[in-house]
């Protein structure tokens, strides 16, 4: 693999992402169903309000409250921004006392609601338009809403002298009902997913909707680090996600809410509060107000969330209660999502380990096992890179690239470290991740040792076999020599030694070059030097060697043939011996000529019979001997 291919392959979406797709589809189905139920509930609720709510609708708009009293309970205009009560909001401002119109609006709102999600924001904008002039309204809201007195829609109505008490009660009931509805709807939406990331995103957007705020930030509590980590935002983006804003409980306004396990509200100039903590990549100082609440599940801190508005805003007690209620429900959802994610992760981990076990036990080849281990490690840990580093420092199967975080897990075998599993990632590793890596490392150690043992066994067997076969060939050569008669014992031994050395020379060339083929020129040169060395008197040897290569066994045959013929020429020839190795018409031609007396009559002897057999059977060629002013031996065989 080239490094480009390594990159390409590391960028390829791994299997788990396809699995994610399935899971998401599942979740979408669940979501769809939940949404259907939520809509049905919403319709029922709407119908109930319409049924006995018409006079209520009118009454709710009647200016009732004396300043400072029950002011928390209304401020419908603010809540109407949420888009959950668009019908009512418009009724308030435009169509007072016109039930038909109100119904129409309600239906319209319901249609809008059905579209949900994507249209939410647009819908919100659309609904905000008619309300815009009324948003900044003071006084009768108990001073919550700073702005012009004249612009408050309630202002006019409020001045009508009506009996405040029944109306206030009704308004309170109405506000409570609406908060209940907001709570129900928010929770239904948030519960529609089991994916933690998705849940947190939903929490951020739905809470912002429910309370009609400009932004909502959701923090999760990382117990191990004792930190609140920003996980989802609505309204404001974290500009650079490389450094996720995180703070300890007690740090920052939201941190204080988490530490004290109680809501913290600052109506205006929140960023000037001494508790405020600014993150470079999170533009929070644009917000005036903040309401932060802890997310508690059975008194256990799961996180914290806050809502922000650009304009100063005093959140009412009811709103605070609503947010606290939502947060406690969200805590359950987060717990479920965490459990679900944990279960999913366990499954993925087990799958990864099973995959590795299979690869290790099925494959006879170490390389394959190691490759599978590295690839599965990358996939199951969403790593940017992984590799196995062996004892000798050799890196096996490096994949991907380095990340911001890295874990090096030792591979141990019988209490001895035999290597390391290295895994890189841009996100930090959790305890679970490290436990999985440890398990993988254990498998890798087993695979390595297993593979090495197999290799040792196979290699040892092969070597033994070759050695025994070579010894057999040597024994056979000696036996062949011993059967020939009328030979000087000293010469017989010398010839035998030369033959054995000829075989050794082939192995020497083979081991030096670590190739399967032997260069004949080099081999012949070596043999010539070896044979000439033993001579007492000087001989003139000329050689012309073309580059020809042969496989191991044929090279051995040729070495023996050459040794016999050359030895013969040195012994019986004159002062000059010429050697030529050439390639002609796809055939190799080896010629050895001397200027001696030549041979007369039928040639015989152990050496020559070996040569004839080798040329015929091993080289598949022919040998010709010509006696013409010396002996000329020519061996021709296919290349």
């Amino acid at each position, binding site marked *: 693999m080239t490094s480009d291919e390594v990159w390409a392959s590391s960028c390829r979406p791994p299997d788990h992402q396809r699995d994610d797709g399935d899971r998401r589809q599942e979740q979408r189905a669940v979501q769809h169903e939940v949404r259907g139920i939520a809509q049905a509930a919403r319709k029922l609720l709407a119908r109930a309000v319409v049924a006995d709510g018409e006079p209520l609708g009118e009454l709710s708009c009647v200016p009732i409250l004396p300043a400072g009293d029950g002011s928390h309970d209304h401020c419908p205009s603010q809540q109407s921004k949420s888009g959950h009560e668009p019908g009512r909001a418009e009724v308030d401002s435009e169509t007072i006392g016109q039930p038909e119109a109100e119904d129409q609006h309600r239906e319209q709102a319901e249609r809008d609601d059905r579209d949900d999600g994507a249209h939410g924001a647009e819908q919100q904008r659309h609904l905000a338009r008619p309300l815009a002039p009324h948003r900044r309204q003071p006084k009768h809201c108990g001073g919550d809403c700073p702005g012009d007195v004249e612009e408050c829609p309630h202002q006019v109505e409020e001045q009508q002298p009506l009996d405040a008490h029944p109306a206030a009660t009704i308004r309170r009931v109405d506000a409570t009902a609406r908060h209940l509805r907001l709570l129900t709807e928010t929770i239904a939406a948030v519960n529609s997913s089991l994916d933690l990331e998705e849940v947190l995103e939903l929490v951020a957007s739905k809470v912002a909707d429910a309370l009609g705020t400009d932004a909502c930030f959701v923090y999760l509590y990382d117990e191990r680090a004792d930190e609140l980590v920003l996980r989802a935002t609505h309204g404001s983006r974290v500009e650079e996600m490389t450094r996720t804003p995180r703070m300890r409980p007690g740090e920052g306004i939201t941190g204080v809410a988490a530490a004290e396990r109680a809501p913290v509200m600052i109506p205006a100039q929140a960023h000037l509060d001494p508790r405020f903590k600014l993150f470079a990549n999170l533009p929070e100082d644009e917000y005036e107000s903040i309401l932060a609440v802890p997310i508690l599940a059975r008194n256990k801190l799961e996180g914290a969330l806050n809502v922000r508005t650009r304009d100063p805003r005093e959140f009412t007690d009811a709103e605070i209660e609503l947010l606290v209620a939502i947060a406690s429900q969200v805590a359950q959802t987060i717990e479920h999502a965490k459990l679900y994610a944990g279960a999913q992760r366990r499954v993925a981990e087990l799958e990864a380990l099973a995959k590795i076990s299979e690869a290790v036990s099925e494959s006879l080849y170490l390389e394959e096992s190691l490759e599978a281990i590295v690839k599965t490690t990358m996939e199951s840990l969403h790593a940017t890179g992984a590799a196995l580093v062996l004892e000798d420092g050799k890196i096996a199967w490096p994949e991907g690239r380095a990340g911001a975080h890295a874990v090096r897990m030792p591979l141990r075998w019988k209490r001895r470290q035999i290597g390391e599993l290295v895994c890189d990632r841009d996100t930090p590793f959790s305890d679970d991740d490290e436990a999985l890596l440890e398990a993988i490392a254990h498998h890798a150690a087993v695979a390595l040792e297993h593979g090495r043992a197999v290799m040792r066994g196979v290699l040892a*067997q092969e070597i*033994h076999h070759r050695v*025994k076969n070579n010894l057999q060939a*040597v024994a*056979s050569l000696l*036996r062949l020599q011993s059967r020939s008669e009328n030979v000087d014992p000293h010469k017989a031994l010398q010839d035998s030694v030369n033959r054995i050395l000829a075989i050794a020379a082939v192995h020497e060339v083979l081991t030096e070059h670590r190739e399967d083929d032997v260069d004949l020129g080099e081999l012949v040169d070596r043999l010539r030097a070896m044979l000439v060395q033993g001579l007492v008197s000087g001989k003139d040897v000329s050689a012309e060697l073309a580059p020809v290569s042969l496989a191991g066994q044929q090279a051995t045959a040729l070495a023996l043939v050459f040794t016999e013929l050359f030895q013969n020429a040195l012994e019986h020839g004159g002062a000059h011996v010429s050697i030529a190795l050439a390639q002609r018409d796809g055939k190799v031609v080896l010629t050895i000529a001397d200027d001696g007396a030549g041979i007369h009559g039928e040639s015989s002897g152990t050496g020559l019979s070996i040569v004839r057999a080798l040329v015929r*059977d091993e080289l598949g060629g022919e040998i010709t001997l010509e006696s013409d002013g010396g002996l000329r031996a020519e061996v021709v065989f296919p290349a």
Partner: protein
Amino acid sequence: MTKVLIAEDETIIRLDLKGLLEGAGFEVCAEARDGEEAVRLARETEPDVALLDVKMPHLDGIEAARRILDERPIPIVMVTAYGERELVSRAVEAGVFGYLVKPFRETDLLPAIETARARHDELAALREEAESLAEALAARKAIERAKGILMQREGLTEQEAFARLRKASQISGRPLKVVAEALIATLEPGSSRT
């Protein structure tokens, strides 16, 4: 003279084997360089004994032995540098009678061949005996059956029935078994031959 086929891919070793066998009074009728050639030459030259190397190109010695034995049972001795248990059991399964591990000595080779031949002859004798016993058993069964039929149909005693069968055999000049089978086929045509 005993004819031997040798199959060995290494020329030197083959030359040595040939020399050894010829020195010991065998006739080397064929020299093969691989398994396929060994099977072909065994068919053409009909050797009395085959000496096969295990590791050979094209077809390994054990498979070659199996094919040679399928065509004609002869004593076969395997020669190999492997001393593996698994290989030995494979060779035995193929019907090989002897096993020689490289590097071998002259004194190992001849006894291995002799042992293989002796075992082969022994086995051949056993096979023959088993065959004749099976034949005898079949005859005995047929006769018993025929006797039973006669006893039932003619109301004869066992001895009388046997006497009648023997007489029929004597008159027709055919073995008792053939007579019995003919009788069963005639009187109980539906029944299969024993």
